[in-house]
């Protein structure tokens, strides 16, 4: 019986090589983004043509971004952490990462669709999440450092944080340039239009929300009227 089961498992379950998995993971999650960061032009060219980017890495960095923000809120050192622990809200923290990403992806896709961009929506999403790479790791490093510094050394903490932010913008810029196959000037134009599109989207959403609210008020008042009169 036991032997039968063993042979069944051997036959039907794919063999998982853990070491190979780990190597692949390191390759995808660390080495790939690092090479993208150091060789942005050729790197993002391959990114699109040779499909060197992986979907799971994009999700991984999106989750890591949330994780970094939450950790930074709660575990930053005493000297740099002025947050009120009472105000912490996990759902809000998650929304604060997911929502801007979704808005940015939609706005960028909408803009580049009009501007002859070659990137698909998936490409844009992956570029944006891949560019979280420096922010996530430098942010975590900054959080660790912040627990071992005095007031004079807070500059190190701010350096790592701002370096992460600057590298993130840098990667995003060249990533979008690469996947849309734009020149420098057109990329800058595209970014400006993307910001306009984001503002437009937010405006539409606000309008829609207030409209829905009014609709709801109308329907509920009709219902009230009906209930009061006829029931």
């Amino acid at each position, binding site marked *: 019986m036991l032997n039968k089961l063993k042979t069944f498992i051997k036959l039907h379950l794919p063999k998982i090589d853990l070491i190979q998995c780990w190597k692949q993971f390191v390759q995808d999650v660390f080495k790939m983004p690092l090479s993208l960061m150091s060789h942005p032009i050729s790197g993002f060219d391959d990114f699109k043509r040779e499909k060197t980017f992986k979907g799971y890495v994009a999700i991984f960095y999106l989750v890591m971004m949330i994780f970094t923000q939450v950790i930074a809120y709660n575990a930053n050192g005493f000297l740099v952490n002025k947050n*009120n622990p009472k105000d912490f809200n996990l759902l809000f923290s998650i929304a604060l990462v997911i929502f801007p990403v979704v808005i940015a992806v939609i706005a960028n896709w909408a803009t580049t669709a009009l501007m002859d961009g070659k990137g698909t929506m998936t490409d844009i999403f992956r570029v944006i999440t891949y560019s979280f790479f420096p922010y996530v790791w430098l942010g975590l490093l900054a959080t660790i450092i912040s627990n071992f510094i*005095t*007031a004079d050394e807070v500059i190190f903490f701010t350096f790592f944080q701002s370096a992460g932010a600057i590298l993130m913008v840098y990667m995003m810029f060249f990533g979008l340039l690469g996947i849309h196959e734009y020149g420098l000037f057109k990329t800058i134009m595209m970014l400006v239009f993307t910001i306009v599109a984001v503002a437009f989207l937010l405006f539409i959403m606000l309008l829609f929300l207030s409209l829905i609210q009014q609709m709801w008020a109308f329907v509920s008042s009709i219902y009230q009227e009906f209930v009061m009169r006829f029931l």
Partner: protein
Amino acid sequence: MKKIIIVMMTLTILLLAYTLPVHASYNYSPLMDVIYSAEALIQTNVIDTSNLVDTSGNRVSVTFGDLVDVFTYEDFIYITDSTQHKVYILDSQYRYVGQFGSGEGNNKLLSPRSTVVTKDYIYVADHGNQRIAVFNHQFEWVFSVLAPSDPTFKQYPEDPKGYDFRPTKVAVDKTGRIYAIADQIFEGILDFSPDGTFSRYVGANTVTLSLWDAFWLRLTSEEQRLAQGYRLATTFVNLHVDQKGYLYTVSSVTEGAKIVKKLNYKGIDVLSRNGYIPQVGDIASMPQNTAVPSGPSQFVDIDVNDFGNYMVLDRTRGRIFTYDFEGNLLYIAGQLGNIGSSSTSRQSLFLRPTSLTYFQDSVLVVDSMNKNLVVFQYTEFGRLVNEATKYYYEGEYVLAKQTWEQVLTLNTNYFLAYAGISKSELREGNFEQAMHYAKLGYDDITYSRAYQPYRYSQLVVIFPYIIGIGLAGLVFVFIKSVAKAVSLSKEEEDVE
């Protein structure tokens, strides 16, 4: 029937007891939350027309008008009454001693606004008579400080350009220099020599523009600017001179301006602002659904004690905010409100508080609408906090720590006490304790100072291991590379 009556009576009593206002004092946490605090100042006595007696215990036929200022000198209290045009003098038992201001000629006051008493003279800001009247201690007029010979003021009665000299508040330092605030004057505080001649303006509030305003000002033309009206500097509301000659001033609330200032002789603001929260009174916005008035605190008076603690009186919500010399908010007392039977209640309720002063171990506040003098006494908690700040001011850190520990037994929410303990632990060299208390008291600087030696002591322990592990790693890498080189050369040999 009897039962019902008894039940009804108990119910009524219970209900009455329930509706008695439960007064909880509050303070602000370093994270700017409103937190409960122990009461520091409680109202113990109210002196008004109905219970004012003279030294022999007889009722006095004095009717208080608008009481606008209270000042204490040695054992006497000087209360300025602007509608009865008088200054009343009370002794330390709050008994009526005398009054002045209703004499003939120069002895007559017209709507006085403020009184200051020094060793030699009594100075009254005689608002209606456009002068600062100076009396001796027999209440006889000595001289008057008249309008300065400055083009801002009217130089002759029909001068169309100048303003009348209408002093509202006056302060006198140890050397007899007279400082005054006057209506319509934006140039600063008027500074007179001891003999009454005008010498200069001091400490004018500057007009600050926000970046947005400055941007628009650049774009507007000359005519448009004229149409916009003047941007006037923030006016001073009240002032007080401390023992060392520093001027403590409060200004009306304006965006971007400092409300409480401590001016040195050159008119430069030297107030310490190291507290958790800025010295602006209430920092949290008041809930809209309560009876508490909203809006920023508007300070009307300030007084300083011997060890640098100062308290300001807020007109908006009738609260007294006390700060220490470093700018920490110590405690908040008082409340606006109308309870009707204020003589039976220990509740501190004001209608329009106008002035406050330290007097021996108590705090006196006058209210111009209630027309009374309210006496506050420190509770055990308030007394201990004062004592601790006093010890800290004098450099007695060990005593300060012991007092702060007593404060914590009365109020565990008191962040300043934790910070105070951490400071003295740091001085004693207990770095780990100091860090612990600094974290509780949100004291960044002390934490950082304590952490540096603590980190060093930790590093001394850990560093040998780090070096050891590093060396072992190096050796491992070296051996590995040697082995690789050997195997490579072997391969080469094999090839050959």
